């Protein structure tokens, strides 16, 4: 039996997530064109199918030797444990944001006539939310002729499952710590905050998966540069934008911090080609929706004022300590343990990767510092979700750092001695 390695899993996730997005993008175009069901179906299915074909045909990922059967049994176990935890934790009535914002938006997208209402002022609270997540759900609802809730719930759970499986498969490759994958699984299966957000169809988990894919593809690109991977990187950065308003800031931060990667190899055109479809669709969509972007509203006017207020930094710091300690205790303990292990290796401290990550995440926190809203209210209502968006990427960074700091041969030597 061929092993399900990290690369093949990553390739699967890239194929499925990309297909989901292409289907959504195609469907939004069909709604604009007011197409009937059959042409809309073709416009939705065809780009998704083309994407899956393109990924399976052209994407070659770097696969590390010696870890070929690292994940043959870990991943099914991870699936079972995560599903069991989800079954216990799932709420009978779901969550507020999921159906008030995302499912409502999906219902607007479930028919061309409903979609036309989005034109109107005050059509929907937060009509400015991007269409990446709800468009495909709206498409399935249109096909079914009903609005069953199992559709968005399945989508949400599968995004969560994919995120955790990718991290577990990456952790299974750290041969120095053979039970690391189990610890990573426990972080996401038994931390209520993570699980509740994964189960209740917030868009934060899909956004966190898109960001994770960007970092994973970036690592793969650095090992074995391939133009198609750059295209994928651009596409998934665009996907971040298409999933949530915050994703715009996040994608811009990543793009700027890692600019040396795309510019040094003089292949920025491939990146831009990948970025082009989701960004163009998003800009057209935003143009189409009369409501202003709640994240960007007042951004310019408050930018410098927010940046130079020391109280803002203190509020952010206090809130970070409270939310990380209170809601993410397991990831916090895991991070401390990892950092302790890594600090024993002096070359880790010289690594530029940590600086890059801190720059990305620090840049992202500008959405709080420069907001036109009351920063206390904004951090109270959204900081836990923002952390969830960043958590998988941060855990992935720690796992990869551990893998590089503790290579297999060193561990074997230590074991023998």
């Amino acid at each position, binding site marked *: 039996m061929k092993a*399900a390695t990290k690369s*093949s899993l990553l*390739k*699967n996730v890239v*194929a*499925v997530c990309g297909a989901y997005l292409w289907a959504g993008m195609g469907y939004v175009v069909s709604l604009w064109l007011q197409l009937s069901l059959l042409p809309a179906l073709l416009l939705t299915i065809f780009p998704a199918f083309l994407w*899956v074909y393109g*990924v*399976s045909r052209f994407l070659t990922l770097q696969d590390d030797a010696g870890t070929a059967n690292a994940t043959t049994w870990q991943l*099914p176990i991870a*699936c*079972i444990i*995560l*599903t*069991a935890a*989800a*079954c*216990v934790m*799932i*709420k*009978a*009535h*779901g969550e*507020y944001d999921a*159906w*008030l914002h995302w*499912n*409502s938006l999906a*219902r*607007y997208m479930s028919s061309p006539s*409903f979609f036309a*209402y989005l034109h*109107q*002022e*005050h*059509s*929907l*609270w937060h009509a400015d939310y991007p269409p990446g997540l709800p468009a495909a759900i709206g498409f399935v609802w249109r096909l079914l002729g009903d609005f069953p*809730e*199992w559709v968005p*719930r*399945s989508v949400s*759970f*599968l995004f969560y*499952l994919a995120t955790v499986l990718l991290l577990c498969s990456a952790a299974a490759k750290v041969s120095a710590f053979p039970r690391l994958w189990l610890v990573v699984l426990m972080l996401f299966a038994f931390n209520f905050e993570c699980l509740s957000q994964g*189960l209740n169809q917030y868009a934060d988990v899909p956004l966190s998966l898109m960001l994770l894919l960007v970092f994973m593809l970036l690592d793969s690109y650095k090992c074995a540069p391939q133009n198609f991977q750059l295209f994928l990187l651009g596409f998934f950065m665009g996907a971040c934008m298409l999933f949530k308003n915050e994703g715009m800031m996040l994608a811009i931060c990543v793009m700027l911090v890692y600019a040396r990667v795309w510019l040094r190899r003089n292949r920025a055109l491939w990146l831009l080609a990948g970025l082009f479809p989701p960004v163009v669709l998003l800009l057209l969509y935003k143009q189409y929706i009369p409501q202003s972007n709640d994240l960007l509203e007042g951004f310019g006017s408050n930018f410098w004022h927010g940046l130079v207020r020391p109280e803002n930094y203190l509020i952010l710091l206090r809130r970070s300590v409270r939310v990380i300690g209170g809601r993410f205790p397991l990831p916090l303990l895991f991070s401390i343990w990892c950092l302790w292990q890594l600090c024993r290796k002096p070359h880790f401290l010289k690594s530029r990767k940590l600086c890059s990550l801190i720059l990305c995440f620090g840049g992202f926190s500008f959405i709080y510092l420069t907001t036109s809203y009351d920063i206390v209210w904004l951090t109270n209502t959204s900081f836990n979700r923002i952390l969830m968006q960043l958590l998988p990427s941060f855990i992935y960074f720690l796992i990869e750092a551990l893998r590089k700091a503790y290579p297999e041969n060193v561990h074997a030597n230590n074991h023998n001695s």
Partner: protein
Amino acid sequence: MVLRIKWLIGLACCVLALHVAHFLKWQAAADPFLEVAAAMHSIRPLVSQDSLLTILAQGVEEKYMLYARYELIPGKASFEPNPQNGMVLLLTSRCQVAALTEKFLQTSNATVCWQETDATLGFTLLQLK
């Protein structure tokens, strides 16, 4: 093909288990939603899709949102009474139902021939001339 059948079957089983768990919890939950849903279902046939004008403000009680999740039709910003009976439903929060009904009547300049407000459930059914 990049996707493998055994993985797809496995994931489908995971999702199915999740929905079974959700269904069981949904069945077991004795909640005010059922009461609201039953009341709303009884008046639902009176109200056409376009006339369901919702005033869902931030902070509204959860059970109305639960109702809205199942029954709410994406509505127009401008309302149109049901052409057959002139009915309009204002769905709002319990504490705001009177104030929002009055505001609606003022801003819409509508002439009401019959109206019933349920302050317990938080909605007003209006029949316009």
